[in-house]
């Protein structure tokens, strides 16, 4: 806050020297050497570690290692058009993993957005006590790596070590979060635990930027807290809700770590449970990097497709109003 305050003060302070008339316009005219010094390091790194791998993956996905004749001699690299994509999409277990991923998104995205929104609104309620302490508590899991979160919840999902399952057992409820019916929800819970607080923080910041005059005016008009939430808070933080939904969609499609860590604990998770696990296995266990590249590109296309579809839906004119 102090630094921002200084910046604001500095902004309002008059410049020490009066500016010549023409100077403000001239700023954008020249592209000095300094611009390149500022810009090039990032652009080079971005090209090397973002663009290059994507281009490499797309090219690689169009080739295959073919062994000649009787399989003697070194295999040769051949251009096979979209054959790898055909192989991937004709594979029932890869298709199943795509379906599972879509199902996981359908569970996780609404759960995440509603939880983050609920927490942000609860913390903003007039009746909330100790909002700062609660806010840190909810945000804390964001600092716990997904691997460690999965290890911890893994212990809480097996009856031998889980106090929750032991308590439920004592009440006569026999729950098994790692059964094949429940395991997708068990994974969703780990992701929710890790990221709900982070998304909540983005929403709280948006709520804080709503001018207080709006609340005062609404109060004068006799609006209650529900009415304020519905008519002021939700419409005004809509862009932030859209943002966290988008981040969550992208995040869910990357599902990899949680099933990998939970796998030894249950038979409900196969080695190609998600497309990313399948791609990882193809690349490093099955030794077919070309097929792995095709699978990775399919995931990327899915991410872009879902993001585009979502943005299209929320930006449709009829939906702008809520």
């Amino acid at each position, binding site marked *: 806050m102090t630094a921002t305050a200084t910046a604001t003060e500095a902004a309002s302070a008059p410049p020490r020297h009066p500016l010549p008339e023409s100077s403000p316009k001239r700023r954008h005219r020249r592209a000095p050497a300094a611009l390149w010094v500022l810009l090039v*390091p990032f652009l080079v790194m971005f090209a090397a570690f973002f663009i290059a791998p994507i281009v490499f993956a797309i090219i690689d996905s169009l080739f295959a290692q073919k062994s000649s004749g009787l399989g003697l001699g070194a295999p040769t690299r051949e251009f096979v058009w979209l054959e790898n994509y055909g192989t991937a999409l004709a594979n029932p277990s890869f298709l199943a993993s795509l379906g599972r991923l879509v199902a996981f998104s359908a569970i996780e995205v609404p759960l995440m957005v509603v939880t983050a929104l609920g927490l942000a609104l609860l913390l903003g309620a007039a009746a909330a006590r100790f909002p700062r302490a609660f806010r840190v508590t909810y945000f804390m899991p964001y600092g716990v790596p997904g691997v460690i979160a999965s290890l911890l919840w893994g212990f809480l999902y097996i009856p031998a070590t889980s106090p929750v399952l032991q308590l439920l057992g004592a009440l006569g409820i026999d729950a098994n979060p790692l059964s094949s019916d429940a395991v997708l929800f068990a994974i969703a819970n780990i992701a929710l635990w890790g990221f709900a607080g982070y998304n909540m*923080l983005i929403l709280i910041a948006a709520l804080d930027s709503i001018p207080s005059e709006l609340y005062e005016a609404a109060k004068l008009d006799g609006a209650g807290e529900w009415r304020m939430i519905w008519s002021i808070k939700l419409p005004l933080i809509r862009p932030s809700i859209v943002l966290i939904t988008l981040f969550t969609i992208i995040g869910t499609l990357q599902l990899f770590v949680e099933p990998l860590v939970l796998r030894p604990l249950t038979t409900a998770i196969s080695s190609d449970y998600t497309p990313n696990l399948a791609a990882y296995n193809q690349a490093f266990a099955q030794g077919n990097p070309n097929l792995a590249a095709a699978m990775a590109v399919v995931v990327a296309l899915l991410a872009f497709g879902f993001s585009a579809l979502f943005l299209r839906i929320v930006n449709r004119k009829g939906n702008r109003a809520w």
Partner: protein
Amino acid sequence: MVTRTAARTARPATARPGGLAGSILVNAALAAAAVYFLLPIAWVLIAATKSPGDLYSTFGLWFSDSPQAWQNLVDLFTQDGGAFSIWILNSVLYSGVGALVATVIATAAGYAFAKYAFPAKETVFWTILGGVLVPATVIALPLYFLLNSVGLTGSYWSVLLPSMVSPFGVYLARIHANTAVPDEIVEAARIDGAGDLRIFGSIASRMMTPAIVTIFLFQFVTIWNNYLLPLVMLNDPKRFPITLGLTLWNSQTQRDPMFTQLVVTGSAVSVILLVVLMVSLQRFWKADLTAGATKG
């Protein structure tokens, strides 16, 4: 900024008291959520004090009669020739150096996008932003094969270099430079004879401090939590970060149940490290930067 601060301080006065029942309901919900978020953390801190046998035979949310926290810590730090301390140092190295470089180059680029005009500026910017939408897993696999072809896999660089790119950081820096660094100041400094790089290095970067700290923290946690990249790149346990090291031990629990307690204690220590970092640096987590970015 001014209205935002005003809103924050004025809001309690504007909200109405919601009645006793409503108040109890709100606070009960807040407390229930706190229990949920604290449950795994409380469990692991308690479990880290138990003997391997008590881990399975005592109630998870209370201490055993014969706590051995010290013994567990000694085991943790002496197992495999002190591997755990090396993993912590590696994690600090990857996250600290990676986030530092990422912050410097992302801030410089974001400032350049905010304050200069150049050809294809918006196209380049939106391409970078598109990078935020590409799943990290899509990048990690091909990156392995790329770095393998130049012989970098297995080295510290294979994890450090990709961690130095933060497209989201460029986005935050541009947004923040627009609002926090007024054109008049840049212009005045120029008239005083300061070069462009000096203006960025000693004037603009100071005004952008909140954004810089935020970019650093986000990138630090992102690298610290990253699993796939080191998993793909590294094979020598001496270069592992904590996440990879703990899963290495976890994979040996089938063979030797002793490793379970090591994984539990190791998880507890790394959770404590990050929780201390998050809580002590709480005031620097400026999510309102991201919120400001979504306006309009």
